[in-house]
């Protein structure tokens, strides 16, 4: 008995490899078909004219990319995308952090508040966006009637090009609070109580403890939430489709929506693929930068 297991365990590398691959095969097959293959295919498409049905036409080389960099529409889309990251990520993290800090107190009934603060995780993008579509409604919406009662003129939240991206950002921030809150609260609860106790012996006040212990100890988690926030912002789609459809005049046509329109409304799979490759590269660069900066700034225990 011991002999056979030793054989299996140490001498039969090939067999082990076979067994390992057997267990990995479903994942390898699926990732191969639905992730690796399509990434290469997207790159391939980006150098051709490809119709909406997937028929590959003429080779255009870097043509699509050149066109992208000259297109004022695409420039607008990129500016919009970066503005959107700026509007959403800092706001959602600050709000979630505030909520996590007040919900980390050990008080009676705190579980109720934690549940409420987590709730937007259970709100789908379609449902959340539809509620905000109603709240933003120019004449029936609550937001404008609240503004009205304090004597401010209503805002055309979704049809004014100055406001549309902000409105989509407000919706997005609200929807992301749940997940960020859960992760940040988990991070807060992992900070050792002893640190606070010894700080209290030294006479540290509430804000001193917050800035000298809580935030530095929380930095790895904050860093994680920033990364998923930025990537999430780049991938925004559903709320735009429901709230603005990319409009007015392309004001909310940010990258994934732009890829979607180009591919599935205009049928330019080749040109859309070039945008998709650019999306991939941007997310890759952003992640690498964040890891570089993160390594230096983040305080690990």
């Amino acid at each position, binding site marked *: 008995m011991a002999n056979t297991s030793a054989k299996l365990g140490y001498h039969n590398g090939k067999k082990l490899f076979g067994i390992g691959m057997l267990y990995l095969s479903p994942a390898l097959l699926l990732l191969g078909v639905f992730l690796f293959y399509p990434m290469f295919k997207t790159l391939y498409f980006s150098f051709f004219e490809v119709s909406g049905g997937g028929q590959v036409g003429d080779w255009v080389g870097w043509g699509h990319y050149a066109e992208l960099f000259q297109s004022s529409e695409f420039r607008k889309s990129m500016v919009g995308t970066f503005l959107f990251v700026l509007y959403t990520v800092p706001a959602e993290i600050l709000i979630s952090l505030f909520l996590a800090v007040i*919900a980390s107190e050990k008080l009676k009934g705190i579980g109720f508040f934690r549940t409420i603060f987590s709730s937007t995780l259970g709100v789908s993008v379609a449902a959340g966006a539809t509620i905000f579509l109603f709240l933003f409604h120019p004449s029936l919406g609550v937001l404008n009637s609240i503004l009205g009662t304090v004597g401010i003129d209503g805002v055309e939240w979704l049809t004014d090009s100055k406001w549309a991206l902000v409105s989509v950002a407000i919706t997005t921030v609200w929807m992301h609070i749940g997940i960020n809150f859960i992760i940040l609260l988990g991070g807060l609860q992992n900070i050792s109580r002893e640190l606070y106790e010894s700080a209290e012996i030294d006479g540290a006040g509430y804000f001193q403890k917050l800035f000298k212990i809580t935030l530095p100890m929380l930095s790895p988690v904050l860093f994680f939430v920033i990364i998923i926030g930025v990537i999430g912002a780049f991938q925004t789609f559903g709320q735009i489709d429901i709230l603005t459809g990319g409009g007015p005049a392309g004001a909310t046509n940010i990258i994934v929506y732009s890829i979607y329109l180009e591919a599935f409304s205009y049928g330019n799979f080749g040109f859309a693929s070039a945008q998709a490759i650019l*999306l991939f590269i941007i997310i890759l660069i952003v992640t690498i930068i964040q890891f570089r900066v993160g390594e230096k700034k983040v305080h690990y225990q």
Partner: protein
Amino acid sequence: MIKKIIIYALLLVSSLVLFFPILYAISASFMSPQEIYAGKLLPSSINFDAYKDVFERVPLVHYLTVSFWVSFIVMIGQLIVCSLSAYAFVFIPFKGRELIFFLFLATMLIPWEAAMIPNFLTVLNLGWINTYAGLTFPFFALPFGIFLLRQHFLTIPKELWESAQMDGCSRFRFYLKFALPLSKSSLSALGIYGFLTTWNQYLWPLLVTNDDTVRTVQIGLKMLIANESSSSWNAVMAGVVTILLPTLILLFIGLKYIREGLTSGALKG
């Protein structure tokens, strides 16, 4: 004492502000069209007309059923595929597994949307438009899930596997009888996460469905808005509340597991 009062006040105000959109959607779903026009905050009486209206106008029950099955199939598929892979990464010491694990981790950097055009064509060519297969198969292999379960399997003592092996326990039996039962909390976290994210999917179901056969409730909602006039916001809100309920309930029940799962993923990563 004063600190306590301040914190309670902050908690209360924040809850109200954060939960306001959902409360208002519930409130509006009970209003009459006149009350919506008048911009009321609360309905004068609880009436279910808007619910009757929305269930009559769109096949909401059908959409809900489809969404349930799609989410359920993806959840089961992810649990099987991810746990098998995670098991291989922890309990089968084959050559090159670090490399393959790294490859799996690296795929987390690929935004799924960057691959959607060829994926759409794949599904189209397989004849999977308007089928459960098209909606579910592409999501079975979730690198995040493999990572999460691997972290949990690593906490199972190696001695357990060694002694089970002595007793003649096969690898697959150990996977079924020990590895899976010992990881209930992580499996629950992944299951709930998978179910919620699939239920909430928007872009992919929009691409691979073009009739009601397997239309999910999220796309059903988009259709509802597109077809409604502004006078029936109460019916739209009734639709919203109906599709919110399952996920909110699931979230409230499973919050503990999700918190544990996500937190360990974030911290140990």
